[in-house]
Each structure stands twice: as C-alpha cells, then as structure tokens.
C-alpha cells in the first residue's frame, strides 16, 4: 500500500509538470509582456569612477561606440535594455528571454535552470554575458558575468564601461498591479568603479494588442550612411 502510494505521488507531479505553460501559469510572478521605457523612466546617478579611469580611456570607449554603430555591430549590454522601442520579455520555466526591437541588439537569455555561471574556461565572452536568474520573493535577481570588453557599445549609463571583469546584478520587480516593471542595475568592477554603480529603469507595460512594427535593417555598406556617421561637423 505504502509503496503504491509512494509511486503514485511522483507520477502525478510529473503529469502536472509536463505542460510547459503550467510552470508559467503557476509562477507567482510573471514579467512577460511588452515594456517601454518612457522619458520619466530613468534614475541614473553619476558613477563614481576609479581614479585609474582617465579621459583617454573614456574617449577610447566612446570610439568603440562610434565604431559599433557605424558597422551595425550587435550592441549588447547595457544598451539592449534601452534601444528606444519596447522590450519583449517572455518568461518560461527554464529561462526568460528578452528581445529588443532592434536589428543590432542580441537576444538575452536569463537562465532559471542554473545556479552557477558557465566556467570561465569554457564560456566565450559575449556582449550580453552569461545571465543566471532566480526569484527572491517577488524580485527576479539576475546575475551576469562573462562580458566581452571590446565588442558592441560598452558605455554604461551614468559613466563607466563594461569590461571582462564586470559583474552586473539586476533586480526586476513588478509595481502598480503589474503595469510598471522596475529594473535596478548594479555594476561592480573595481577596475572601473570606486563603488558599485547602481541606477534604475522603470518600464511601462505597453497597451494591449501592441504588435511590434518591422524595424529598419542596418546596412553597414550604405555609403551615404557611412559618410553621415563618419563626418565631423
């Protein structure tokens, strides 16, 4: 009898878990949706940079930005979170995907099924890094390392820039009955910041029925465009 009972319980659990939407339906918090960053959606204090960060270094990072835009490179973090158009966030059981409406913002994968980062010897650094996520009560905490320092737009709001040693922690929380998504970003990198640099974005949920409009593809070989971006006033 006992063995039969013990056998039946996991079977029931397995049957319930086979539906990939069940986990989402059962999740107490779901940040899925289209989210737009309004003009009053940013609180970005000035970063306290390490004394080692010189104007020349900052200028060098700005040149990376210019080059990335000129050549339609993937922009990566943190720019993916503020490209202008709404973000599409979809929450599943294994991961949460963040897709920006831009031809140059790579899709972010926030892995819920992992507690540790990919080994540094295995992981090829990317502009988005390696993100793992877990829920702490009503807050989604996302931990990202593994950034590629030379590609994309490295500049960080408020000052500073991402490097190979940058560590980003984001905290996502729904506010106002799920109509506002608060995301607090904290960058820690002793080679850039004197103290961890934090800022917050608050996205508004986009109106019901919203469908993204096709965006303009980016052509790095458009001579007119290249001349425009490379000209000096």
């Amino acid at each position, binding site marked *: 009898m006992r063995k039969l009972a013990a056998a039946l319980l996991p079977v029931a659990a397995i049957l319930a878990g086979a539906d990939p939407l069940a986990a989402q339906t059962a999740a107490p918090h779901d940040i899925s949706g289209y989210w737009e960053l309004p003009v*009053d959606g940013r609180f970005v204090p000035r970063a306290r940079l390490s004394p080692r960060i010189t104007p020349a270094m900052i200028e060098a990072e700005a040149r990376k930005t210019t080059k990335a835009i000129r050549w339609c490179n993937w922009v990566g973090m943190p720019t993916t979170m503020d490209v202008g158009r709404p973000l599409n966030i979809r929450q599943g059981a294994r991961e949460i995907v963040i897709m920006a409406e831009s031809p140059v913002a790579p899709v972010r994968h926030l892995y819920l099924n992992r507690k540790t980062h990919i080994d540094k010897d295995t992981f090829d650094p990317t502009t988005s890094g390696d993100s793992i996520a877990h829920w702490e009560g009503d807050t989604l905490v996302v931990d990202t390392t593994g950034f590629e320092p030379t590609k994309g737009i490295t500049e960080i709001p408020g000052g500073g820039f991402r490097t190979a040693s940058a560590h980003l922690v984001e905290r996502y929380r729904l506010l106002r009955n799920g109509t506002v998504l608060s995301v*607090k970003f904290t960058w820690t990198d002793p080679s850039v910041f004197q103290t961890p640099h934090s800022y917050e974005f608050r996205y508004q949920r986009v109106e019901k029925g919203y469908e993204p409009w096709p965006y*303009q593809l*980016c052509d790095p070989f458009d001579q007119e465009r290249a001349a425009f971006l490379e000209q000096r006033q």
Partner: protein
Amino acid sequence: MKSIVTALAAVLTLTVTATDPVGAQEGADRNRSAAPSARDISGFWELSIDGSNVPAAVLTPGITKAVLDEQAKKDAHAIRWCNILGLQHAMGSPRPIDIRQGARMIVIATEVNAATRYLYLDRRTHINREEFDPTTNGDSIARWEGNVLVVDTVGFDGNKGMTAIPGGGFRTADSHLVERYRLLNNGSILAVTFTWEDPKVFRTPHTYEFRYHRLPQSYEPRPPLACDPFDQERTRFLTTPPQIPR
C-alpha cells in the same frame, strides 16, 4: 484693363486657396501619391540608434558646471511634473514623429509629451516679440530653398519643458534655431540638421544632424504613455537614488 483683370485673378486665386485647404492639401497629396516629391516631407518618421551625428557643443566660458547642473534640475522638474517638454525632446524621442504638410503650414505631431509643432509656410517674419508668449517649441516659420525646407525658430521659453540640447548646452529665451529638412534615398530618409545659436550659451553655432527612417503609410500612432505627477511612488523614484539591497 489688363491690370484690373490681373488684380481680379489674383484676388480669385487667393480666395480659392484660402477657402479650399483641401484642394491645397490635395495638391500636396498629388505630389505625394506620384513618386515621393522632394518637397513633401509628410509621413511617419522614426529615429533609430544610428540616426544621429551629434558633436560636442562648444560652450561659452560662462556656462559652468554649476550652471549646467542648475539647468538639469529644471529639466528634472519638468519631467517630474509631466510638463510638456518641447524642443529638442520632441524631435529626438524614440517614438515616431508624424509630419503633415499642408499649403499654409507643416504640422509635426509626436507620440510623447510635447506640444505639436507648427511650421508656418505663409509667414516670412516671426510674431512680434512683444506679442508672442514664448513657448517650449517657439515660433517657427518655414520656406523652401530648392529641395530643402528651412525652418527658423525663435521665441523659446528658457524655463519650461526640457531645455537640454543634444551635444551640450540648453535653450534659452534668446536661442535661435535653424533647421534644414531634406529627403534622401528616394524619400525613405529625412535628414534634418539643427543649428542652435545663442551667444550666452554657445561660443560658435552648434550643429548636429538627425536622420529619420520613413515608416509605412499604414503605421498607426500609438497612445502616449501615462504620466501622473501626483503618483507618490513615481515621485520617490525620480527624486531618490535607487535602494539596492546588499
């Protein structure tokens, strides 16, 4: 006799034009429905991440960090209180702008918290400064020079809305803005150069350029996002650094 006929014809033309705005618009529309006319900038236009070339402005020595910080506080106040934001924000927001060209004026409507801009084609001079109440968008008059629409704007209010200018500096009551609009790439791109002159702010005129992509005619503008100046949580967010648990 000839002069009477000429005068009568002129009066008749003026009357028809003045009382038939649709006819005038249809004239413009005809221009649009044939291949995009080089002199019709009507359409929905979007500014993307690679759509701006903004050099650093050369500011006068009088514009110190303290002055800039003070101006930034004014801008923060405008955002905090959901004030209409005006130029330059209206032209640089991520939402598309809607430009509609008529015979007497060109209207630029935005999907953000900025008043509609009116670029008057039927005036050659600005409203008298004694009469005109300065606004966040100023008083704009426009004319075509070949295929370039030149827009001249004065009459800004230096204390309202978001005054920051891309590249540095800010608009004041003495600011003078000249914009030059032209279509590129068979009408699929709208290039706009902005030149700000204000001896109190800029040592030399400050110029930058935006290039907008045309959206399909079937694009439908979206409602603006909500802004509630009495939302306490929002106020706290805008005025207090984020609290991050360690």
